[in-house]
């Protein structure tokens, strides 16, 4: 449980950080809250040559209002995200899901950006970002680029953030109209990762579901959208029966893994039940 030796850099700006990464050698790891990276280093599954600690990069912390979106700095801790008034007003789904992450101690250190770049299929925030159509601002030595949530999650523990780059902020569009949201997380003990979870964002218009966006946690190597359910719900009547019928296709196109907590077929079943529950709640029924 002692990490292998490594070089350490602690920049104070994004530019310095990018330079430290470029100068750090072949195997550089960025340290955010350390809640995923440090355990892996202690178990010696990762033995980076250099660790670039973002803890002092003030510009990466905090949430701001940017007109049609709220912008969450990558280094904003889970605790700060959860309790932020802008998040609570415009993206309560993020607050709700973040509250289910781990325990107080982990939430005090772990960061929104770290959780998204880590892209653990069992992590709660990727599916939420996907359901909210969030955008990811990535910085490199050549400048900044923005990718959609759909492009951001590439594979198991792999995102669009390339070597030498940093995730700097996440833009969450403000939603217009009458939206309801719900995160249904299924796990066995209080501070555990999701076995399966469903993030539902639903817009209602005179008794109908105008639009539904559904993100699935841990139903494949990346977070997924339950597109078949979304299609079935678009324009449908907001009734328990229609929702239940639509939710039956929640596992379509997914490829969940089998592990100690669940085999694939059970995960598929859970996705259906949890989708029904999440959409029902988000639709205000």
């Amino acid at each position, binding site marked *: *449980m002692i990490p292998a030796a490594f070089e350490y850099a602690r920049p104070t700006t994004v530019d310095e950080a990018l330079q430290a990464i470029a100068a750090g050698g072949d195997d550089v790891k960025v340290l955010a809250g350390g809640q995923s990276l440090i355990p892996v280093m202690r*178990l*010696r*599954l990762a033995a980076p040559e250099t660790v670039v600690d973002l803890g002092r990069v003030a510009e990466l912390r905090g949430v701001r209002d940017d007109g049609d979106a709220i912008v969450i700095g990558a280094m904003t801790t889970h605790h700060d995200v959860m309790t932020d008034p802008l998040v609570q007003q415009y993206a309560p789904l993020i607050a709700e899901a973040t509250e289910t992450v781990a325990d107080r101690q982990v939430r005090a250190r772990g960061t929104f950006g770290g959780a998204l770049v880590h892209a*653990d299929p069992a992590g709660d925030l990727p599916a939420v970002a996907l359901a909210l159509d969030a955008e990811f601002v990535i910085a490199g030595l050549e400048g900044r680029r923005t990718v959609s949530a759909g492009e951001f999650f590439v594979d198991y523990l792999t995102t669009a953030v390339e070597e030498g780059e940093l995730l700097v902020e996440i833009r969450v569009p403000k939603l217009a109209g009458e939206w309801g949201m719900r995160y249904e997380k299924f796990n066995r003990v209080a501070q555990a990762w999701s076995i399966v979870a469903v993030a539902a964002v639903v817009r209602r218009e005179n008794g109908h579901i105008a639009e539904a966006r559904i993100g699935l946690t841990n139903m494949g190597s990346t977070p997924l959208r339950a597109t078949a359910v979304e299609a079935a719900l678009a324009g449908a009547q907001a009734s328990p029966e229609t929702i239940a019928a639509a939710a039956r296709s929640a596992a379509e196109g997914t490829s969940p*893994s089998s*592990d*100690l907590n669940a085999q694939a077929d059970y995960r598929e079943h859970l996705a259906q*039940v949890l989708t029904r529950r999440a959409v029902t709640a988000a639709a205000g029924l």
Partner: protein
Amino acid sequence: MTAVEDRPTTEAPEREVGKARRRKEDARLITGRTTWTDNMVLPGMLHLAVVRSPVAHAKISSIDTSVAQEAPGVVAVLTGRDVADEQGSIPCAWPVTPDMVNPGHPSIAVDEVNHVGEAVAVIVARSKAAAQDAVELVDVDYDLLPAVLDMEEATGQDPDLCHDHLESNRSFHFVFDGGEAGTGADTDQVFADAEVVVSRRFVQQRLIPAFMEPRSVVVQPQGDNYTMWSSTQVPHILRIMLAMVTGVPEHKLRVVAPDVGGGFGGKLQVTPEEVISLLVARRLGKPVKWTETRSESLMTAHHGRDQIQYIDIASDREGNVKGLRCRILADMGAYLRLVSPGVPVLGAFMFNGIYKFDAYRFECDGVFTNKTPTDAYRGAGRPEATFAIERIMDELAVELGMDPLELRRKNWIKAEEFPFTTVAGMTYDSGDYETATQQALELLGYDELRAEQQRRRESNDPVQLGIGFSTFTEMCGLAPSRVLGSLSYGAGGWEHAAIRMLPTGKVEVVTGSTPHGQGHETAWSQLVADRLGVPFEDVEVLHGDTSVAPRGLDTYGSRSLVVGGAAVVNAAEKVVAKARRVAAHLLEASEDDLDYTGGKFSVRGTPGSEVSIQEIALATFAAHNFPEGVEPSIDADATFDPENFSFPHGTHVCAMEVDTETGMVKIRKYACVDDVGTIVNPLIVEGQVHGGLAQGIAQALFEEAVYDADGNLTTGTFVDYLVPSAADLPHFDTGNTVHEAPGNPIGAKGVGEAGCIASTPAVVNAALDAVRHLGVRDIRMPLTPERVWRALHDGGDGGDRATAGTNAYGGAQTETTAGVSTPQSALGGDR
């Protein structure tokens, strides 16, 4: 000398026994500002790291340590071959049958490894980090052998062998037959004549004790003497065993268990790492330290439970039970450790529970598999027995169409029948099962919950409700030495205590029953305060160091208060008897004319003439004015050896909600009424019950040590070995009845294991009660939501779990605990 003059000489101090005192040791334990072994730093201390086998079963074809030897900071690298002549075998103190097979257990494997995590070499370095870095530099070649992992296969036709120098995978075959022992009728005959027979196969999954403080050892050589500090439950046993294993003479060894952060049986052991640390310190003449990581702890500290139980129960149509037959496969793991074989044998006398059977037969095979050895874990043998009987009683009730409580009531021992000798030959001391049950039902709000259960069934609610019982007893207070002898255990079961009266009137109590978090310092102080009439705060309890507390048999089997506390009380009585002679001298009266209350002697009928025990302590210290021919000491010691076990009992009732859509189970309410005899400290009793319930419920719902097809432990971190926290457990409604234990001067029966022994079957029975009407007959522990869902949807008992660790941390647990991955153990399962 005025040390005692300013004491208020008012009325007798308040009675301590029965007071809910906060534990005096807690502040230092909770803040960690104490003597945890790993906190020790000695000048020149070297650090050990253990190189461990990544494979379950293999011949070691070569070990190359040359690169590691050269690594910075490394002082030495030792393999099993290097210490083969001096390491002996990890001892097994409990040969349960004369022909028990013990394959021998080197501390460092020499030719063959038999489980993942077995030590193959030890690095000695100047820092912990240097030692850890060098672990990866040791190059070991293994010739793989087939891994034996399944007990039924291991004892079936032509099995692979766990130890190829043995003839089979069987270590022993232990039988208790009531007919042969003369405690019951002929079992086969009773079954042949029975109107109803119900047979079931129950699985007691493998568990990990998961104590909070990881194990740690420090050894300091000093000339030809050695002092070992170890995070152990059993410093006294450890000292004797280390002497026998390593040849360091017993009087040259001092073992200290400083403050120890939990054990649950998991530190009732002589570990390979303790032996290795002593060997290295002896060889290098330098102090050494070894502290395990959590992964090492989960993988290599001994595991518990792991039985397959084939249980038959016979009764008549009216529900009068007649016979019980138990056939047990008990997984020993790869080796026999200190009491591995004794664990199922401790259960052998408890499968009949609180019921009156005519006939009883128990047989158990101890089986070797290529897994971490098993040994004591909270309850050791008795949870397994209690689970079997309390589950089969429910199954019989279903078969007979009877209410499960009615069936129990019909068969249990009545209050007026105590003491009662059971079909297993045990004499239950005292109790009243009916009263405890009535109280528990009231605590639960039984009638209302039954009504709600009915409503949910009728409305086809997706969330169903069930109620489950466990009306249990257990044998505690290990143990009468003669009984242990008759079961071939290698030691006695007495306990020792000494009391030293200091000149200032303060009291030192020396106990041989070494605590590891139970609160002995508080409870012993309460006992002594009452007997000696001294303030609670004036008592200091010393323990855990074989040079301070030279005689003792330590803490396990709910024995401390019942045996160790009894020794303390007897020692206090001896102090009082000695003090009485001095008092008579000082008061110029006859001993017979003295009254003793509240720590003061007074001459009967002569008001104002009194002397306190503190004053006597001072007079004894000065010895200026002492009775003729009496040695100037009122200190005393006592050794208590009980004549019988004590038998706590209780009724536990669990109400369980089952979400039939997801399989999630949730305890709605839990009530229990335990009879643990006299209660010295209600707060400690409550704490022990809560902790025990947590662990018993954890077996039912959460915990399981899982091995994959290659013998890798895939529940190798707390991400996958699910220990519940307070957030995952319900509020507990607890109560007590008190029937004093007749077998010790306190009247206590022992509470350390009760909650853990009783709760597991109540929880499983409750879940089954919720879904039996949906066709579910059994669900295997732990009741994961997946298993419950499968049992509901596919029938069966929920089946095996997938063995891959979860993907959080990228499946790290498999890699670190095993070091290898094969197609079967691929990280993250089938991804």
